[in-house]
């Protein structure tokens, strides 16, 4: 049965977040100093306020003290928050997703017991996945249907000392949430393969430096993490399967939520353009009454809703791994498909919405140029849509990659 209705709970949480955004977030996030690409400090008080609503522990199981939200619900929340402020949406979505996966699934009982109390009770306990490095070759590129053996992999090393502790050395770059995280899940090379190591932020030998906004090319909170003889308990390594779940080539982790954030930004642009077009008079009437503008707004909406369908299908597929719609086998790489749909269509949508504002569409004291810029960041974060298309091709042609 194909049912597009949201549950009562999903509608309730959506409306709660929407109200919060309208009352508390929007008035702050549209102030001119928050619309510049440089030096925009993270509004931690808004992150805290959203955390109080339970949004930081959203995906954590109810037993453990979270809301037990599934991926689709997380996407709904991410979109609503992002329509208000993309940075707080990003910080919370990152922590919520990691919190869910780590505590609900990947940690063993001993690890969970050690970290759960702090995670639930400390309103500022954020999480970060420290996976990427500056020289790492994550792009598929020349290795499409080949394996040149030339790609640079993980260089951050973790070696066990005589006490069985893990000693970590290396540098992770542009890690989401690094400046605010209290616990890192770190992708390391153990000498006999990759592993994910849990490292608290206050461990000696771990230093975080916040990344400069450099023209605004990230959303949320972003930092480099340096490990120098950083030593943690031998019990901090996550089990087999953690690497693939969090960071492997076919890994969808966090993608739908990230895409939902982009969708939220596009929606904010659309709502602004629709409102403005309903009051601005040029050509003798409200500009929405001109065919050219009406059609443009319709195209923006078509792009938003197409995007939403793709993201929500990917989210549903993540929550229902045995339930591939239409009985496709192998299952379609839905999160990668929605990655491409979202990035391209939201970029188009924000540009079209901005055009309705004339010159104001490029002014830095107005939000439209920021929405365009953010959608550009999403379009060009990571290895790009071209590389994602290669991954989709390998997935559907049944190419298996060890």
């Amino acid at each position, binding site marked *: 049965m194909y049912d597009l209705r949201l549950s009562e709970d999903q509608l309730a949480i959506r409306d709660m977040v929407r109200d919060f955004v309208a009352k508390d977030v929007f008035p702050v996030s549209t102030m001119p100093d928050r619309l*510049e690409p440089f030096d925009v400090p993270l509004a931690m008080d808004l992150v805290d306020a959203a955390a109080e609503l339970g949004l930081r522990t959203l995906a954590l199981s109810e037993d453990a003290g979270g809301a037990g939200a599934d991926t689709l619900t997380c996407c709904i929340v991410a979109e609503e928050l992002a329509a208000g402020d993309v940075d707080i949406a990003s910080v919370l979505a990152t922590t919520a997703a990691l919190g869910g996966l780590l505590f609900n699934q990947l940690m063993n009982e001993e690890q969970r017991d050690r970290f759960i109390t702090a995670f639930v009770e400390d309103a500022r306990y954020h999480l970060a996945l420290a996976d990427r490095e500056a020289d790492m070759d*994550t*792009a598929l590129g*020349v290795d499409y249907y080949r394996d040149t053996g030339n790609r640079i992999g993980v260089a951050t090393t973790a070696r066990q000392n005589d006490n069985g502790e893990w000693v970590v050395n290396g540098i992770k770059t542009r890690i989401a949430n690094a400046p605010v995280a209290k616990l890192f899940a770190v992708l390391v090379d153990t000498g006999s393969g990759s592993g994910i190591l849990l490292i608290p932020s206050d461990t000696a030998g771990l230093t975080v430096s916040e990344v400069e906004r450099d023209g605004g090319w990230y959303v949320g909170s972003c930092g480099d993490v340096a490990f120098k003889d950083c030593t943690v308990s031998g019990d901090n390594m996550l089990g087999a399967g953690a690497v693939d779940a969090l960071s492997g080539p076919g890994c969808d982790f966090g993608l739908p939520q990230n895409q939902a954030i982009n969708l939220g930004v596009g929606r904010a642009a659309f709502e602004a353009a629709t409102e403005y077009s309903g009051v601005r008079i040029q050509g003798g009437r409200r500009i929405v009454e001109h065919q050219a503008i009406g059609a443009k707004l319709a195209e923006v909406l078509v792009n938003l809703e197409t995007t939403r369908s793709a993201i929500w299908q990917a989210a549903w597929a993540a929550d229902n791994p045995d339930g591939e719609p239409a009985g496709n086998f192998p299952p379609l790489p839905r999160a990668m498909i929605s990655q491409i749909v979202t990035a391209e269509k939201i970029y188009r949508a924000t540009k079209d919405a901005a055009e309705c504002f004339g*010159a104001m*569409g490029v002014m*830095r004291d107005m939000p439209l140029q920021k929405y*365009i*810029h953010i959608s550009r960041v999403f379009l060009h974060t990571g290895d790009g849509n*071209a590389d994602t298309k290669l991954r989709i091709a390998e997935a559907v042609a049944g190419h298996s990659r060890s």
Partner: protein
Amino acid sequence: MDFLLNQEQLAWQEKARKFAREEIAPMSLERDAILDPFDAFDWEIIKKGSKLGFRTAVVSKEEGGHGIDFVTQAIVMTELAKADSAISKTFSQCWKWSHLIAAVCNEDQKERFLKPFLTDDTFVFGFGATEPNGGSDNRMPPGDVKSGLRLAGVIDGDDMVLNGDKAFIANGSIAKLFFIYVRTDPTVPIAQGTTLVMVPRDTPGFRHGKVFNKSGWRFYQNAELIFEDARIPMTNLVGEVNGALRRREGEVGGDIFGDLELTANGLGICDAACDKAITLVRERVQGGVPLKDQQLIQLKIGRMKMLTEALRSYAMRVAWEHDQEIHSTHAGLAMNLATDTIQEVAELGMEIFDRAGLPMDRGIDKLVRDTFIWSHLAGDTVQRLKVARRELSQAQFQLI
């Protein structure tokens, strides 16, 4: 059909290319990164370019300029824009109004304004039509009395007194002389009730207000202009009272030059994007292999060059038409095309720079931000509709 440039055109191209590479390119990004929009401007580069003739290039040789033809103008704008689109525009904005002065100003006005313009390296022109309630309405008047510019001009003896304001005015914070559209008759539509006047910077009651902080074209100054009982002599009028928006056949300047300007300038951005992308793909290695050896990269570079060269052909054709005094819809069409083309080319360039773990290249980001300016200046709905309507109103189908 001869696509070759003559010696004089080649010489100007070389001069512009050298200035762009040696003087503009080294300071372009740093200027773009300055947060304050007024501080992003720099007089030094303008003075240097002025000494090479770029500011006064289109004034006739007889009057003391260089009298370069439209093809040369297009080439120079492209070469300068390749290093920085906004800086190129700052120079060519002076040409826009040089054309008008040559066409319609009288000897007295040329003496008072053209002469100092020629000798002062910091003399640039501004132009004011747009107001908060009217941008599109000035470019495509709906024909009613309420729409369009409202800056009031009341004749008082030998003077005109101006009250009101303008928004987003090019060179608004730095120009020494402004060409301002004034509503001298608010009882009729703007097409019948607008007068073009010249307002020197030091006119009492006239000042610039806010400098607009734009996401692209940051060096280029756009400002609010404020008129509070600003008084100008009637000898500062250009043409007739209420005659400014009546179409004059054969007249060059204003919109007609502006269409070519935005096409040629945009072409420079395409050249810059192609250069950056080609350089990168030759140098950057992925999986041990230069990017240029990957098919998807090759397809993108091919498309960037294809679109760039198609735009160049159209830009040169429009320039040639202007030199032949042929007026067609090609200028407007080329300008509309430029909007779509330059955004696609710059954005393809940005895709080529995609790489996880690294911030986006600042230079390609600037190019992309600059291209979006065209969406409200050259390729917005009204600019496309105007050209389409011009096509539709042609009495006969033209074969070229």
